[in-house]
């Protein structure tokens, strides 16, 4: 217990200590070397804490309430320790990656800036998932927004970036307000807002309050998770952040929203109604389908990954929605299976999405571009990065032998169990949702086949890609470890499912899923053995190889520019789903007066995501119009303002008179 507590205290204290003690020496190169080491140690201690408390079953509690004007309690229960472990593991790998990455990309000031805020950002995430009182939670939640924004700002300054950051901050604060409101709605029914008190009140809430709490929490957390249509900030901030920070934001920060949703849906409010589940399911369907469709059309590597995060959050929501529906129909076993599926995808997405974002960082380190249309042939030039990214692409496409498949299989399995529920609506909706998941899986496979196939395979399409080389060892190590974890979980899922079943059991005590969960760990090693065995057999076939030119229809040679580009690769699917994209194409032939003898033809295609056009634009217009109306009241005349005050006073008095 002493050791656990000590580790936990140190884990939390180190990130705070870094700026307090070391910041005066931020100019020295020692600062840039010491901070990563300390951060890594802190992450190691955090992971050790979770493992220790997991093994001994003891909960380290940090109570700072006596220092602060509000109850500030941190603790590590099963759910929290899962997320703390995830944060620590991903951050540790990211730290290893970042040392070389940040050194290559940034000047002294920027480096010090990033190394100061990175530990604080991680600490704020740990605060969120370990908080055991509402104030601690909200405190961490706000810090998380502020520090992540500070990190995004490190990458330079331009009006567009400011605009994007402003959108990020605005949406995050709106979300935080919703979360705060949902906490405060508990107040009439408890004496305080520690989680123990909230839990005690949760079961006895009147129906309407519970609904209001849940809806507000859903809105708040969905904003953070980037669920469509609340995703607006996500593709704007993730691509402009430094790559390791994008990895953390996409891989881990989004998951705090999943944590919050699980906390509210399964811990605080034990009696969910079925329609809450359907709501989450609907959000999941919309986000996963639209997210992957937007990703498919992207040419910027990091924007593509950002949209794919939206899709994966959608898949997690599918599992969560199913879990809530099962919970509402009192099927605890399937509820915990679906919950395990959602949590498994949370972990898996954290692993492979971090690899992908860091890999994007590696690509930009050596080629200085993220435009997929200019890449190509990188696998031969950077084999280690290529191999890790290939693993991540297979994982995110949900292919067997990689970890994405484990969580998607579990989600399918729980949807299939929907047919056993008593309600005909659930019997129809849940299996149909499996169809949506299958569609999303197919589209994701197409999307990442295009990404890897065009950026890493074939021949380089530009000078940048041609002169690319492998990145330093540290960067390969950071991505490599996480990629290995993807394969390990994919081949032997017991690594992941064992702990997750305990987490699920702590939230849904009566749901015994051990039997369902023991299936994949038995099957996947056999499957892997078979695949690898046949692969070895095939490799053993004796063969001579000869390098020859490719078929060029009789032309002497094909230039690299004649290869299929990412844009063209996704064209068939984009034209199938043209209604989603609303493309805006423009073809110009020069000179205009001689259409049959063109000198140059220019083609421009733009897409606007339909939500901004049809959802946000009218809202913004309405607000601006309202503001214009209000502006009329501002005459600039002091007497006029005095009149307003006077009128307000009089009308208030009159109101009081009327009401009494």
């Amino acid at each position, binding site marked *: 217990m002493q050791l656990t507590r000590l580790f936990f205290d140190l884990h939390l204290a180190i990130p705070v200590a870094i700026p307090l003690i070391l910041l005066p020496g931020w100019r020295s190169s020692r600062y840039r070397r010491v901070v990563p080491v300390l951060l890594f140690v802190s992450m190691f201690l955090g992971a050790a804490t979770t493992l220790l408390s997991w093994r001994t079953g003891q909960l380290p509690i940090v109570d700072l309430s006596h220092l602060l004007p509000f109850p500030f309690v941190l603790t590590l229960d099963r759910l929290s320790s899962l997320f703390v472990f995830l944060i620590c593991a991903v951050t540790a790998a990211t730290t290893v990656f970042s040392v070389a990455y940040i050194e290559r990309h940034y000047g002294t000031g920027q480096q010090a800036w990033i190394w100061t805020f990175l530990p604080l950002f991680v600490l704020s995430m740990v605060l969120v998932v370990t908080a055991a009182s509402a104030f601690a939670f909200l405190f961490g939640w706000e810090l998380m927004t502020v520090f992540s924004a500070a990190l995004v700002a490190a990458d330079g300054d331009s009006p567009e970036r400011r605009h994007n950051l402003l959108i990020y901050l605005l949406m995050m604060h709106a979300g935080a307000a919703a979360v705060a409101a949902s906490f405060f709605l508990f107040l009439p029914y408890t004496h305080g807002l520690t989680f123990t008190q909230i839990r005690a009140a949760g079961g006895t809430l009147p129906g309407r309050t519970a609904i209001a709490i849940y809806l507000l929490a859903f809105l708040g957390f969905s904003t953070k998770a980037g669920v469509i249509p609340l995703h607006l900030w996500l593709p704007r901030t993730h691509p402009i952040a430094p790559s390791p920070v994008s990895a953390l934001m996409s891989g881990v920060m989004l998951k705090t929203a999943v944590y919050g949703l699980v906390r509210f849906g399964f811990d605080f409010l034990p009696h969910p109604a079925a329609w809450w589940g359907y709501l989450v399911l609907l959000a999941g369907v919309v986000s996963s389908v639209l997210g992957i469709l937007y990703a498919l059309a992207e040419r910027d590597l990091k924007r593509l990954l950002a949209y794919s995060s939206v899709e994966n959050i959608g898949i997690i929501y599918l599992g969560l929605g199913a879990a809530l529906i099962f919970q509402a129909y009192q099927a605890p076993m399937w509820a915990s299976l679906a919950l395990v599926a959602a949590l498994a995808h949370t972990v898996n997405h954290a692993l492979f999405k971090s690899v992908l974002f860091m890999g994007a960082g590696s690509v930009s380190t050596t080629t200085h571009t993220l435009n997929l249309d200019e890449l190509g042939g990188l696998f031969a030039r950077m084999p280690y990065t290529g191999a890790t990214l290939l693993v991540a692409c297979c994982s995110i496409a*949900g292919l067997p032998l990689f970890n994405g498949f484990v969580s998607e299989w579990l989600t399918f399995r729980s949807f299939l169990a929907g047919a056993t529920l008593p309600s005909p609506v659930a019997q129809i909706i849940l299996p149909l949702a499996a*169809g949506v998941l*299958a569609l999303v899986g*197919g589209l994701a496979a197409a999307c990442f086949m295009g990404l890897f196939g065009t950026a890493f395979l074939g021949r380089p399409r530009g000078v940048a890609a041609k002169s690319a080389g492998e990145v330093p060892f540290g960067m390969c190590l950071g991505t490599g470890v996480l990629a290995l974890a993807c394969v390990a979980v994919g081949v032997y899922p017991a690594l992941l499912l064992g702990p997750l079943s305990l987490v699920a059991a702590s939230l849904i005590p009566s749901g015994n899923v051990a039997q369902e969960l023991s299936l994949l760990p038995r099957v996947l090693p056999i*499957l892997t053995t078979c695949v690898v065995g046949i692969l070895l057999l095939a490799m053993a*076939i004796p063969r001579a*190889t000869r390098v020859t*030119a490719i078929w060029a229809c009789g032309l002497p040679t094909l230039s690299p520019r004649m290869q299929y580009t990412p844009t063209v*690769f996704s064209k*068939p699917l984009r034209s199938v789903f043209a209604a989603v994209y609303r493309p805006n194409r423009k073809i110009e032939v020069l000179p205009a007066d001689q259409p049959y003898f063109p000198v140059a033809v220019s083609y421009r295609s733009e897409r606007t995501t339909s939500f901004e056009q049809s959802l946000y634009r009218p809202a913004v217009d309405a607000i601006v119009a309202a503001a214009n109306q209000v502006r009329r009241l501002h005459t600039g005349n002091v007497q006029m303002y005095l009149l307003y005050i006077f009128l307000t006073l009089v009308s208030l008095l009159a109101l009081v008179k009327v009401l009494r």
Partner: protein
Amino acid sequence: MTTAAANVLQYLLLVLGAPLLRALIARVKAVIQRRQGTNLWRPYADLLKLFRKEDLVPPDSSPLFRFAPMMLAASTFVAAALVPTVNQSALLAFAGDFIVLVYVLALGRFFMGLGALDGSSSFAGMGASREAMISALAEAPLLLGLIAVAILAGQGNIVEIVRWTLSQNFFDVSAVHAVAFAALAMVAIAETGRMPVDNPTTHLELTMIHEAMVLEYSGPSLALIEWAQAVKLTVVLSLLIGLFAPWGMAANLTLAGLALGLGAYLLKLVVLAIVIAVLESSIAKLRMYMVPEFLGIATALGALAVVFTALLRR
């Protein structure tokens, strides 16, 4: 022990006999077109010849180019272990195995697409892009159809579904079965690259899908691809047979039972081969942009099959 032996035998029959089915379809087509047609054993001769030839590799390709066909073969051969054919069991059978089947096939296709893009040929890229579209759109109806049948049978595993179907009356056509069969048959056509979605015998690059994807392959790599493609066709057809017409499949491991099972299975395959040959000789290939429509209809049917499972239970 004997069950295991029977399973191994039926697996080997599927994997080794698969090229014969393609030859049979080609032969029936030849008869319809009043041509002589080739020997039924021709695919084996072709495979042997290809295995002995050298592998031609494009200049700028990575090792993945040669790895992809092996991955395709490995995943397809593993998929073959999941379907029961002669005997009412399979080498690998577990709850939810049909989901694994779908995704194992996707694994091979994913790597094949990468291999095609690695060749840096425009045609291969085009083939990969089209194949990616078709498989992305085929996944939903495929799983919906399988899920509908699984829900109807109340079983989560292919062998158990087959056993349940066998315990039903032959004539009891349920709406779920009919609609799910329609959906799965359409997907089977798209998945195996047959007419009207893809033409396996085309010689014009612009109309190819699967053939364009493997345009740059030769020698042992091509042999693996051809073999895997034949196995895939047989696997998909065997799945259709197992789910919708398993009658005759051996229930116990007597010699007579197995012989009957083998005879029934081969007969059903021959019938399907003839149906495919007749269809391919009588209809034209769909335009590329009609394929999504084709698969969209399959999706609607799959969804309807799932809805029926709930409606007919009341």
